[in-house]
């Protein structure tokens, strides 16, 4: 009966998408409870810590956006959240770079994993722009100083007409809306890619591991 329904919907885009997702993203791949034994290494923790830091960046950023610049500069709780936002960004970048080093030295783009690598590269680049717009959105003298120094460099690249670092509204809008959405979407795609292709094996190792590591233990 089930197969009859599928046959009837052979020309349907919805059915085709469902079949693709079922084939390429089965639940046991999306939420696995077993991993190849080589995943049991601290090197594989760097990516997870980066995601945890991103969660703190987003959460503290939402609070900052809700209460505004006077609150984050003048009140003690506001300054705490301002610092939380700043330091979680530092942790985010430190562990993203450590994750990058680890994946670079194990050539993680091997065996059909180039999209995973490229999504990571683009996420890194967008994260730098997001952090830069964050410095411009502080609403203090440091932000003005950075904007005044950056404008000539940005104009020198030819994108000054579209990306005006002296325009607070544009920088703030990019920082709290467009760029975070892009980063979260790309990180989601990055994780889905890892789930689809599996964690890259060590160089010279068999593609299919004989021994697996049970994550439930």
């Amino acid at each position, binding site marked *: 009966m089930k197969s009859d329904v599928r046959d009837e919907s052979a020309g349907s885009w919805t059915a085709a998408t469902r079949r693709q997702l079922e084939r390429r993203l089965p639940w046991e791949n999306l939420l696995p409870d077993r991993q190849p034994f080589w995943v*049991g*290494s*601290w*090197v594989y923790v760097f990516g997870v810590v980066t995601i945890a830091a991103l969660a703190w960046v987003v959460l503290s950023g939402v609070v900052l956006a809700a209460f505004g610049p006077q609150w984050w500069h003048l009140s003690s709780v506001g300054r705490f959240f301002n610092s939380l936002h700043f330091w979680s960004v530092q942790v985010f970048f430190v562990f993203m770079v450590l994750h990058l080093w*680890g994946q670079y030295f194990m050539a993680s783009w091997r065996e059909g994993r180039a999209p995973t690598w490229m999504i990571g590269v683009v996420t890194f680049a967008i994260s730098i722009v997001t952090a830069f717009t964050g410095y411009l959105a502080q609403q203090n003298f440091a932000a003005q100083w950075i904007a005044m120094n950056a404008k000539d460099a940005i104009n020198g690249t030819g994108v000054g007409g579209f990306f005006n670092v002296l325009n607070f509204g544009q920088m703030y809008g990019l920082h709290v809306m467009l760029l975070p959405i892009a980063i979260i979407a790309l990180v989601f795609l990055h994780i889905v890619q890892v789930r689809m292709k599996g964690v890259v094996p060590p160089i010279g190792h068999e593609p299919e591991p004989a*021994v697996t590591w*049970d994550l439930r*233990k």
Partner: protein
Amino acid sequence: MDQPAGYLHWGFILISWPNLLLIGLMVVLFGLALILPFPGHGSSTEEEKRA
């Protein structure tokens, strides 16, 4: 904290001490991640091998 950071200027290399310290700490952390054993991993693998 309100003072500008000191800089290492060695030939063409110019980097602030805090940035250099952070990069050094990252290299140390990366090295530790490579050599430190991961908790619970070894015993699980041995059990799988015996099974």
